[in-house]
């Protein structure tokens, strides 16, 4: 894009604009004479509201009294006509096109070396609706949309304090995507904020089409199985994160906001936990912790115990398992890996297909393939039960689906090859990988490692709000200094 400043006659400026956009069909240039001054109103087709443009721009311009020169014309526009609330002065072509493509109308006048932009956006956008993920029973049912300004308003509606700051900027050299950093000025760790801004400024991507484009730049640890930046679609969740001193990054075009930093323990916390009675919230948390380990380890433990350490089973179980496995043609690890891969294929198919066909996939996979495989003796029933329990347990923490899926397979291989010894080895590798994961000096394992006893009130249990209202926790407590 051109960093060149706007200069020359109106004709020259318009020629330059046409030259930069290569006469793109969606750029509309309307030559008019307003207040006796020759000018042009530039818009991008489909990005502006026609009604607003007529009411706030065209009518006042046509009714404007005659002005002595273009300077007075611009002054009059700025000072006497409240055409729009958002009306920046444009000095170069770079800003001109960015605003134009963001739904602004731009006025260029004869003899002026600047242009005036008016925010009259009116493009089609999805209305606020319930998020597809992060289902919540008792919390709010509105979720983020693809429009960054709508998302800003969703957060602002819940945090009516001047301490909440929004910082708009752009990312993507070509896409010029609007991104918005949100943080509480009194709680955010200043060092982290500085580093995040530095990282965002250094990004040289051409386009930013989703939050996934920016996430790797904010995760400082390479080769990690676990995310150190989290995603959320829920404005209420984002508000709770902001209150803890985190930074939220909204990206135009994505209904997912990035939250920096992420703690692993958050994957087990939902907003509903704060609605339930503390005893039930604590119980459901421990169920989730258990489900996480079941999701990763159950098939591997089943294989390791059955193949390498059968003395761990009682006689009845051994008889049942032996009977079932004798009929199966494949070895236990092969059978389990086959079932899990089939499940992953079916899941992928279900995700990408239209909803109407998705149901058919479930029927074919569940009833026909599943039932036929068991009745033909291709797959043993105990192994299928273990795998199904493990897969269902994985649904409890959808946030951790990617690492759980991969780890489950790796543990099966390790358990099948070396029994509990292999599971122990891989367990240590995963533990070290997890413990080495951090972003901007915040370890994902906090508050467990390093251990903060005060945080256990919302990790091991969930204390009631009478106690939780005191303490003023911010994530800065978990920051680890180097050297």
């Amino acid at each position, binding site marked *: 894009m051109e960093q060149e400043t706007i200069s020359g006659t109106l004709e020259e400026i318009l020629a330059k604009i046409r030259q930069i956009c290569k006469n793109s069909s969606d750029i509309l240039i309307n030559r008019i004479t307003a207040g006796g001054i020759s000018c042009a109103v530039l818009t991008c087709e489909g990005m502006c509201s026609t009604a607003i443009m007529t009411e706030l721009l065209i009518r006042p311009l046509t009714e404007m009294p005659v002005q002595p020169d273009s300077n007075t014309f611009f002054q009059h526009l700025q000072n006497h006509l409240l055409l729009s609330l958002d009306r920046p002065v444009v000095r170069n072509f770079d800003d001109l096109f960015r605003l134009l493509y963001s739904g602004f109308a731009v006025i260029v006048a004869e003899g002026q070396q600047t242009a005036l932009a008016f925010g009259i956006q009116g493009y089609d956008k999805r209305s606020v609706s319930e998020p597809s993920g992060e289902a919540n029973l008792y919390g709010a049912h509105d979720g983020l949309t693809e429009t960054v300004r709508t998302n800003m308003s969703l957060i602002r509606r819940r945090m009516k304090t001047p301490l909440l700051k929004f910082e708009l900027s752009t990312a993507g050299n070509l896409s010029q995507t609007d991104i918005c950093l949100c943080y509480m000025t009194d709680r955010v760790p200043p060092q982290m904020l500085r580093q995040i801004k530095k990282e965002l400024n250094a990004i040289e991507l051409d386009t930013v089409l989703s939050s996934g484009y920016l996430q790797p730049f904010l995760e400082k640890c390479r080769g990690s199985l676990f995310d150190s930046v989290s995603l959320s679609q829920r404005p209420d969740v984002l508000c709770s994160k902001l209150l803890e001193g985190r930074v939220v990054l909204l990206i135009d075009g994505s209904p997912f906001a990035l939250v920096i930093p992420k703690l692993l323990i958050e994957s087990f916390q939902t907003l509903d936990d704060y609605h339930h009675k503390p005893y039930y919230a604590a119980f459901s948390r421990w169920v989730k912790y258990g489900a996480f380990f079941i999701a990763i380890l159950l098939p591997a433990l089943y294989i390791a115990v059955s193949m390498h350490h059968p003395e761990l089973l009682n006689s009845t179980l051994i008889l049942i398992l032996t009977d079932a496995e004798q009929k199966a043609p494949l070895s236990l690890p092969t059978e389990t890996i086959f079932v899990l891969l089939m499940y992953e294929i079916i899941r992928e198919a279900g995700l990408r297909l239209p909803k109407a066909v998705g149901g058919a996939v479930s029927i074919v996979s569940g009833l026909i393939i599943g039932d036929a495989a068991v009745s033909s003796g291709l797959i043993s029933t105990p192994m299928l039960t273990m795998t199904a329990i493990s897969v269902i347990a994985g649904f409890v923490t959808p946030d951790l689906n990617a690492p759980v899926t991969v780890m489950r397979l790796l543990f099966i291989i390790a358990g099948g090859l070396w029994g509990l*010894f292999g599971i122990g080895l891989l367990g240590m590798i995963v533990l070290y990988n997890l413990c080495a994961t951090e972003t901007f000096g915040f370890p994902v394992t906090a508050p467990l490692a390093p251990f903060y006893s005060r945080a256990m009130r919302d990790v091991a249990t969930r204390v009631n709000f009478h106690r939780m209202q005191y303490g003023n926790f911010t994530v800065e407590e978990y920051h680890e200094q180097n050297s």
Partner: protein
Amino acid sequence: MNKIHNHQLAAILFLSGAWSVICIPSLSGSGQITGTIIACLIQIICCLPMLALRTGTFSNQIKTHKWLGIIYILFFLICGANGFSQLWEAAPPQLLPSSGKLTAAVLIALTCFYTSSAGLRATARAAPIVMGLFLISLTVLILGAWKRVDLSRISFQMTDFLPSIRTYFSLSGELAAVWILSDSVRNHKNTAVNSYLISKAIFCILILFFSITAGGRLMYLNGYPFFTLTALSQPLQGQRADALYILVFVMLHIMHTTLQTGIIEHIAEQIYPIAEKWSAPVSLIFMLIPAYFFKSDILEDMIFYSLPVLILIIPLSLRIRQFMKSIQKKEYSHEIF
């Protein structure tokens, strides 16, 4: 070196030391408990001057005295080799995979290559978690052994404790790591070291106590009290649970070897920055080779004789040297004026 918390240092040292404790080869009687208590007290006394007389950081010391770094590297190589040797000797066959002990050692070495590359901070964060798992399994072990305890098998003895002092010292290689790691602790270094020494002694006494009282004569015949105790302590009624201790076994050995490898890596990086990338795999290979050829008692002897030099004589001599230098400096400055 990254800063770690004092409780993390205590956990790292304890877990490394706990590996040596579970590999104690034989049980000699109640005097072993007395010996352990005395050895622990001696170790606390030995550590006091090391911590009190520290002259600058260890990194600065080895930058100026490269020979010092090389001595420590050799010592930690011996400690690591001893760990592998103990693995081969102590582990009952049912604990290791069917592919054999050498494969087990190579797999552990590969795992340690990864864990040591994750850095000291990752080790420090992992240590309290491993510690928690270890304490759970220890509780299960004790609860399982409780019903077999016969207190009449134990007697207070003040004799025959000298060999156990020696054994306890030869299993305390991580003491030399105290000086190096204490650089990276934020505060309360002495608390961390004392917690480690006391908790290791308590763990050792617990194992010895339950081995004597719950195992009786069987323990003297079988050797390796910890492993015999795991076989005796069965918390489940219809099935054997010894195999579950494989997880403890693996965790402790990895923590032990990672500590040695991590420290070697750190020292090598200070002395020869170019060796940073290669120090971990090379040191693991140099741990496996002697472990394959030497029995653990030879390596333990080497640790026993070199430990006083590393934790007492070197820190003291460096302090004395610095003191002499400061006196010379003062005299020189007096002459000038």
